[in-house]
């Protein structure tokens, strides 16, 4: 019998269509869930027929778009004994730049010089005395280069910090600052699946931000040597799984890890690399499903350190 895979997504992008096609090609049944309508009964999680009983979901493939929705959902599923790819802890870490920096530091993985502070006054002091100008201010949660600010002067820094503190939500009252890296007009994205870096691209742009969402072009990069090794270390630092690791070439320090993405976009990476990225991702999820056996009960290993919630007698 085919393993029953739950597939969670928000807006279905090219990536999600390719993943669903890869499941279909393998003859695998996928039950889809969307961010638009997700309801959980928290005090009776293990009784939910979607993941208890015959034909229930055993492995959940997360491709959620909204960090604030996917995180709690994955935690609830793991509490019910469902294995999630990626794991809740991995999503919580990689979706949050503060937590990612801590995880990388803990693992001794090189990253840009990074500061976090709780006031605009402290941010300006760090900029004036340590990082200098230009420097980079990033939102703690966010993607696609949105709200990432290059602070070229003190006046620009004062304006951006004041705007954040006055107009932003509470998330913007702390400040995540990084040294500006004099990168050679490009950065690298490495796709890691399990214990293997499977493909890598250069993202090149005239703009200082090299997100493909902002128009950067892509070309193939070898995953051999330091590129693959560093990406794998970064992926393992946040807990491992299916991850897209962004690296930058610092002229002085060499390769540094910028961020780790838990739901990485790969539509522009298949053609230059020639790697079937969605196929490799789906195979990893299916291997994970195979590891946990054909039936689910409350004794199956949960991917969290907490015991699963028992079904109500």
């Amino acid at each position, binding site marked *: 019998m085919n393993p029953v895979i739950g597939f969670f*997504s*928000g*807006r*279905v992008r090219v990536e*999600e*269509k390719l993943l*669903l096609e890869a499941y279909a090609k393998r003859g695998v049944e996928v039950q*889809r869930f*969307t961010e*638009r309508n997700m309801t959980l009964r928290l005090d009776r999680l293990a009784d939910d027929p979607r993941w208890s009983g015959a034909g229930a979901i055993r492995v959940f493939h997360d491709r959620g*778009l*909204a*960090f*604030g929705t996917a995180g709690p959902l994955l935690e609830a599923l793991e509490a019910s004994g469902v294995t999630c790819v990626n794991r809740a802890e991995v999503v919580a870490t990689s*979706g949050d730049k503060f937590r990612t920096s801590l995880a990388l530091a803990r693992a001794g993985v090189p990253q840009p010089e990074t500061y976090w502070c709780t006031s605009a006054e402290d941010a300006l002091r760090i900029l004036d005395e340590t990082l200098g100008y230009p420097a980079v201010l990033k*939102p703690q*949660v*966010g*993607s*696609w280069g*949105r*709200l990432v600010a290059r602070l070229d002067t003190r006046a620009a820094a004062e304006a951006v910090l004041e705007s954040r503190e006055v107009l932003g*939500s509470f*998330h913007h009252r702390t400040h995540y600052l990084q040294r500006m890296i004099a990168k050679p007009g490009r950065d690298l994205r490495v796709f890691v699946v399990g214990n293997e870096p499977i493909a890598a691209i250069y993202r090149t742009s005239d703009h200082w931000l090299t997100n493909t969402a902002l128009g950067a072009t892509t070309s193939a990069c070898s995953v051999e040597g330091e590129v693959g090794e560093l990406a794998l270390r970064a992926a393992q630092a946040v807990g491992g799984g299916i991850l*897209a690791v962004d690296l930058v070439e610092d002229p002085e320090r060499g390769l540094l890890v910028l961020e780790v*993405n*838990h*739901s*990485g*976009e790969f539509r522009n990476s298949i053609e230059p690399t020639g790697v079937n990225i969605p196929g490799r991702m789906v195979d990893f999820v299916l291997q994970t499903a195979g590891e946990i056996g054909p039936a689910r009960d409350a004794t199956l290993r949960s991917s969290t350190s907490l015991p699963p919630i028992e079904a109500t007698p």
Partner: protein
Amino acid sequence: MSNQPQCPECSQVLSLSDDTVEGEVIACPGCEAELEVIDTDPFELAVAPEMAEDWGE
């Protein structure tokens, strides 16, 4: 299955291909609104939600 739903913004009749999936976003050729496919049997469309601050990869 009807493959000719109406745009909820401008009522233009749209022709969607059979491989359209739930959650996919399409642009209405009449008013350029971004529309999300809510259901495929039969097709049901809604104006797609605006990008939220926590959206991303």
